[in-house]
């Protein structure tokens, strides 16, 4: 059936019909903004599904990547650094007074500990824009959702600044709990911007069109090279366009946990991984999980350290993140008979970014922008320093 309106991520049923419709309108506005930002002939290669009912029959194309940040694997590559790698990925960092963890594969998690031992881990992949939208539209809904999913102790004052603005870095989304993504790279707009930016075919004096992933990112300025996610998404989209196809993100547009791989997770006899993995938002069967918890089954008389992942006792949420598969869903249609001319390469990588220091990882925009203004190609390539 042709799409009538864009839905909330994972078909989340948090809002009344009028607000769901308003969210759908916001998605349309973002898509159109991205299309307008493309070189004119390429606008047809990033289509708005509402204008193409024939897309209802197109195959849905999953594009997947791993949930544990690649940059921590690059920073701590050695076996003996495994624990450091896991620990570093779970630390809080401060940037311009805002705290967040450097978990940049559109998956963030918080490991809860009791007496120093891992008690439970909560994962989220919900873009901050949705939560900002709720805050803007109905503060009471926002509060009730925080109370439902994070803690009954959440107060409205905890979520808003003195000036009355929603604070995504509030304590229930940083130190005491986790509700949605806050690492500045991890936005829904980034996903749309990346998919749109990747449709443009480039030439650079060596290749026409450019197919090399690094060169594509440097030419078009989408995404960050040190991640698993961005190069995967960009390369997949660009390859579809090279085959003459137009692409879009499948409704409901969102960033998703596809699954946790149970192969490799050994749980005590009599139990299964599904007894520990509890999906609390999104749709597990459709591979559109928004939020999940990993914790002991009711009545278990053992600890999470009795769970083994790849032979190691479970002590960090990071170990589970390595077992999590992330996904976005796309669609491709043959809308145009000929490809446009390749565009000249942009200059978004003057020099290859160093990846040896955390401060150099920060290939992000200065703050999360919730306005309707589009993130311009390359805006996420700006370097900022972090303080630990």
């Amino acid at each position, binding site marked *: 059936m042709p799409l009538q309106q864009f839905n909330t991520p994972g078909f989340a049923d948090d809002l009344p019909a009028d607000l769901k419709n308003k969210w759908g309108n916001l998605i349309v506005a973002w898509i159109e903004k991205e299309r307008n930002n493309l070189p004119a002939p390429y606008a047809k290669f990033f289509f708005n599904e509402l204008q193409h009912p024939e897309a209802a029959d197109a195959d849905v194309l999953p594009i997947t990547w791993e949930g544990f940040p690649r940059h921590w694997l690059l920073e701590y590559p050695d076996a*003996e650094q495994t624990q450091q790698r896991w620990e570093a990925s779970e630390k809080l960092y401060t940037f311009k007074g805002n705290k967040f963890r450097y978990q940049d594969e559109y998956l963030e998690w918080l490991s809860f500990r009791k007496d120093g031992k891992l008690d439970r881990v909560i994962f989220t992949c919900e873009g901050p824009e949705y939560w900002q939208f709720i805050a803007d539209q109905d503060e009471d809904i926002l509060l009730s959702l925080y109370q439902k999913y994070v803690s009954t102790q959440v107060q409205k004052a905890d979520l808003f600044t003195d000036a009355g603005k929603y604070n995504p870095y509030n304590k229930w989304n940083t130190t005491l709990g986790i509700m949605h993504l806050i690492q500045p790279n991890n936005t829904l707009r980034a996903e749309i911007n990346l998919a749109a930016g990747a449709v443009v075919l480039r030439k650079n004096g060596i290749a026409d069109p450019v197919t090399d992933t690094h060169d594509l990112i440097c030419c078009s300025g989408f995404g960050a090279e040190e991640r698993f996610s961005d190069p995967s998404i960009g390369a997949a989209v660009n390859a579809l366009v090279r085959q003459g196809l137009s692409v879009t993100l499948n409704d409901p547009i969102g960033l998703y946990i596809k699954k946790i791989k149970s*192969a*490799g997770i050994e749980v005590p006899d009599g139990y299964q991984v599904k007894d520990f993995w509890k999906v609390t938002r999104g749709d597990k069967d459709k591979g559109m999980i928004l939020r999940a918890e990993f914790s002991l089954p009711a009545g278990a008389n053992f600890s999470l350290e009795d769970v083994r992942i790849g032979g190691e006792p479970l002590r960090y949420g990071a170990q589970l993140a390595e077992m999590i598969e992330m996904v976005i869903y796309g669609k491709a249609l043959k809308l145009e008979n000929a490809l446009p001319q390749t565009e000249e390469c942009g200059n978004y990588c003057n020099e290859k970014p160093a990846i040896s220091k955390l401060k150099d990882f920060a290939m992000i925009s200065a703050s999360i922008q919730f306005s309707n203004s589009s993130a311009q190609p390359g805006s996420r390539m700006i370097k900022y320093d972090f303080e630990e």
Partner: protein
Amino acid sequence: MITEPVLEIDEIQGNIIPGFRMPFQYFAGCQLGTQSNLNGFLNYLLPKITTMREALTYKDERVTRAKQAGIRGKESFSLTVEQDLFWINIGFGNKLLGKFKPDAQEVDLAYKLGLAARSSLLGDPSDTTNEGNKKNWKFGNEQNGADIFLITGSDNEAALLKKVAELKAKIKEFALTIVYEETGERLEEDREHFGFKDGISQPSVRGFVDKEQKTFLIDRLVVEGNENLSSPEFAAPGKMLIWPGQFIFGYAKQSPDSYREPAPISETEKSNFLKNGSFLVFRRLRQDVATFNTYSKTMFQQLTDTPDFQGEDYETFLAKVVGRFKDGKPVILGDQVVAPENYNNFNFNADTPAFKLRNGKQIASVKADQPGMKCPAFAHIRKVNPRDLPTDLGKETDSATFRIMRRGIPFGKPYDFDNPDNPVNETERGLLFLSYQTSIERQFERLTQKWMNEPSRPTAMGYDILVGQNGEEDENGIKWCKFMDDNRKTKEIKSEKTFVIPTGGGYFFCPSVSAVRELISKVNIAVK
């Protein structure tokens, strides 16, 4: 111009590079007990270890004679001056080695924990009644793992058996216990038991084999075609050059960011003990040929029941599952006529360059197949070696860092299709899989766990339906893969059967000759 390293060919064990390739091989896994004389055994073995120099010298002579005689494959072993050889290499499990030297376990978590601990991660069956569950392994689980793994080979079966008897007497003399032993034999035309020619695509390792830096390990035949510096460099068509540090410690590694420039050795890998050594993965893989033979026809039926795929023939279907026809010709080449020496010359993402070779031959460019219409994205050879494709794990340049050096050999007698009642069909057969790499975790395990066993990665077109395993709970091991025709029409087929079953194995470290010597002195101190 980047200088390639000089490989210390008197230090490196010969099965790592260039590989024994011997038609007859014998493998033994040994455990140590309180009465074992490890020192005595290693002293006995040390002068017998076959080095890269010996294996290379023999190979050069054999290949030269084989070319002159126009003979390929295992028959070429009858042409050499030296006959009735007995070659031997050794590997150590971490349970033993870790007591004396921690260097290897510090650089590889998988080696540190061992194959049994990692079995679940590799998708092996969790059901303890399943033949592939580690509890049922012939060796390699927590109880029957090997401390020492011996690899031997000969050009002559009788000579092998005679020498093996001598070796076993020594093993007994030094009070080691054999927990596993098996012979392997190369089959006709180097096929594996399902009938496909094996071992065609191996990494071409950079480096010189002489101190004068005149002789490359891999001869460079290409004189035109390597000009694009952001593309791989080829020694010959299909022979992409890879830095040796991916397979042997102590040398520059393949960079995740560049096909051509090397990556430096990490500080922890700069250990004298590790230098010139390599990690060995051994998996005893039973192949269920009868099931593959019948069930592949069921899968073929699933495909051709769909109008879009009715024109497909069975042999091409099989070739798409593997990525190659049974004779080794890559399915991506379709009907093109190509010389067998160029069966490895293809890419998936970008067309191969046209080559001009030293002998004046011109090799035409080969069309790529990014969507997987000719060579499906789930095909075995594409899953384990995506070549120039960017993947979920990194850029296209990164894919080369996952390569492994395979040294497997079949075991068991070939299945008799002409006489299904032949008792030989009731016997076991399969592959003794061996791979060398400098990171088990990032090479062998990645290929297995992240790609072969994962239907969505690197492309969401299904499992490696031939070798991959679905170890996910509640999925009953069912695998699927999706074919795509030239019009992008797709058809998903399912397999409820498993054709390749893990029945044993281990992770080992294969040190240099000097490191074995150092180990002897360590063992001496420990004994005193």
